[in-house]
């Protein structure tokens, strides 16, 4: 190519080469792997290695007195099957996830429908919905711990004043009500997340089908069930998936508010794994419980994605 021809090339083609003249040739867009290396390294260090380490640990049996670990690949997995607390924790985890998801989804949709307006002031209301999300979960848990205190908590006092609870009743200190108390904090903090996702979905819906339905005389309820819900199904599925995975790993609220109690009434898989790890220092067994949690999350979320045709 002569110099005359080169000068006729479009600027966009000539410019990048001249700009990256100081970079080695393997750092070009034709060679993506070097650019992926930092992220891949982080993933290996903080994701793959801990996972493999946990997997290895789960194959050992630890002597609590001598701290010696012996290779016993079936010990912890067999122990899990016969450990009643694991089954109780599994039940609690599903219960916690299920109830929280239903409340957050329904409330999230309802509030999003209320806030889906361009009228004056609604923008501020939508912005305010993000406030609970910026509070650390442990702080939220402390707030609710105090509000639910049987002696001086404002929520408990309110329920007592309404005659719904006996005087001094401890919501978190009672096995039959503790889960509800913890869920209250969880739902309060994370419903706004659902609201934001639903709002984003609602505001991206085309107006034409709704206008046509209105002309045909469809009521608001009919439009919601026949148009809004079907058109929002993908958004809802993704929201459920994200929150569901997060809820299945519930730890913060349980740890701060009830420490898995009373008894094991609010013990989840992760909180039980934490107690075994930090309390009994049985790292192999705790790792096995954590792996079980991971396996369940992968299986359930994969099934969900397949059932609802969610593609990420």
């Amino acid at each position, binding site marked *: 190519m002569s110099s005359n021809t080169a000068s006729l090339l479009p600027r966009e083609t000539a410019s990048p080469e001249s700009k990256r003249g100081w970079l080695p040739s393997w750092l070009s867009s034709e060679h993506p792997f070097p650019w992926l290396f930092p992220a891949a390294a982080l993933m290996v260090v903080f994701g793959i290695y801990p996972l493999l380490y946990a997997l290895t640990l789960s194959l050992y049996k630890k002597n609590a007195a001598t701290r010696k670990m012996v290779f016993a690949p079936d010990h912890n997995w067999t122990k899990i099957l016969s450990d009643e607390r694991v089954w109780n924790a599994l039940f609690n985890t599903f219960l916690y996830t299920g109830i929280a998801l239903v409340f957050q989804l329904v409330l999230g949709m309802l509030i999003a429908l209320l806030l889906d307006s361009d009228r004056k002031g609604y923008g501020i209301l939508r912005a305010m919905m993000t406030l609970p999300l910026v509070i650390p979960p442990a702080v939220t848990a402390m707030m609710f711990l105090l509000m639910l205190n049987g002696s001086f908590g404002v929520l408990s006092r309110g329920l007592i004043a309404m005659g719904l609870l006996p005087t*001094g009743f401890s919501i978190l200190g009672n096995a039959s009500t503790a889960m509800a108390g913890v869920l209250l904090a969880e739902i309060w903090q994370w419903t706004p997340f659902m609201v934001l996702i639903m709002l984003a979905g609602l505001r991206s819906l085309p107006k034409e089908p709704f206008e046509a339905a209105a002309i045909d005389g469809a009521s608001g309820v009919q439009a919601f069930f026949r148009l809004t819900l079907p058109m929002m199904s993908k958004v809802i599925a993704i929201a459920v998936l994200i929150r569901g995975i997060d809820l299945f790993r519930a730890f913060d609220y349980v740890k701060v508010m009830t420490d898995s109690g009373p008894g094991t009434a609010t013990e989840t898989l992760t909180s039980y794994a934490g107690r075994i790890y930090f309390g009994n220092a049985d790292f192999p067994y705790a790792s096995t419980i954590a792996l079980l949690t991971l396996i369940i999350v992968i299986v359930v979320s994969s099934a969900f994605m397949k059932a609802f045709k969610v593609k990420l």
Partner: protein
Amino acid sequence: MSFKDHDKLTFIADAARDFSARRISKRDFLKKMSLAGVGFSAFNLGLLGSTRPSRNRSFGIGDAAYAQDADVTKWLKDVSGPFKGTKIRYTSEATPPTVVLDKLKGEFTEATGIEVEIEIVPLEQVLAKATQDVQGQLGSYDLYYLDQSWVATFAQDTVDPIAYYKEKPDLAMPGMDWDDFSKPLVDGLAVYDGHWVGIPFDIPIMVTMYRKDILEKHKIAPPNTVDEFVAAVKMITEAEKANGMYGTGLQAKSGHYSLECDWTQVVWNNGGSIFTKDKKFSGNDEAAVGGLKIYQELLKNAPPESTNSTWDGQFQMMASGQCALVNSWDEFFPGLDADGSKVQGLWECKRPIRGASYRSPGDAGFGEIPNPAHQGGSILGLSKYSKNVDAAWIFMQWACSKDIMTRCTLGGGFAPMRISSFNDPRVKAKEVVGPGTTRHLPIVLETINNDMASEPDMPLWAGFSNNEIPVALGKLLTGQDYGGDAKKCMDDVAAQIDKAVAEAGL
């Protein structure tokens, strides 16, 4: 101590007490001190106060009266040269001595150039961090704050301070005076398998505390026995429940060590023990189950929030006037007398209530000592895996020296580890109602010397006392399981513990 010295100290203490209570003028106090031969280099502004009258003056740790001993400062400067710029770390619960030490550590850094970082976190996290550190032998922490229930677990991970003191004479603090540590505390807290795991640092111990006004109102004598205690608790609940007051308050949070502490005490008080001499769990025998039944009875006469309360919650019940009789940690006392407390001066304390008889330590297992006063003490242990072991050793000696331990007591009003601290005139002078009071300490000292109990020393105890036992107790006490049947609950615990002990080969 000679009689002459004792008289002198008593004289100083009495004069200081009179002055702090404004019964004598500053002039008279100075006269008495000069008679006693006290120089005012140490006893100056902080103790004497300003000319402005102020009742219940807080003798803050920053006061000049508590300035660091010059000899200690000199030793620190002499010995720390090679370690200047080193940073040592440890993690601890927010116990009163730790909180005060955290404030005092600046003096150490100023003299030595050694930085000290104290991570103050909840007790269970202290255990978690120490556990991770020793498992990986990481040396992330140079010192370990070890609760008495973990001492056996971590015995293999610390340096014996007595041996190290002899081994490193060039780093040995002059006047450390190891005999000054209360012997029952050393035996109950620091020694495992014949050697010191660390230095005693903190000693919350159970005493009986009562609201004098409420007991007088109902013409109830302060209880001496478990039976009297239970009767008084029931009577007060019956009479005062309508006013929002219960007979007692408990630290019965399910799954928490605090509940396990309460449980061991009722078991011991009823003639039981946690283990038998043949190392079998005996929390399910008749005596122990009887003790647990008493606890179930007490729970009916405590604020319902008790089942969701640890020691913090129990203290709040006492401070907010929700209960009148408590058998629990002496460390609560200064907080009850603090400025702004709505119960200031209303609580009194006495030696803990007693059961009819106690199982002898010889009939219990794993070094357990059944007695009326559960202790929740802790030690400071020097990590074997520390990369700054000598710098940490200098700090450890300083933190556990006579001067610092006494000043920690003066800063927080809690029980010291050293006999000399109990007898210090400055400590005696604070035996009055007010912030940082030490008026409970004579009772605490008597309790330590006569009533101190100790949990089993075994490597698995940290797990049992934080998981299996308090979780099962929580299920029983909150009605989640066992249908209120204490025996059934304890049989379940026995099966789990005996299996784990056998598997560990103990």
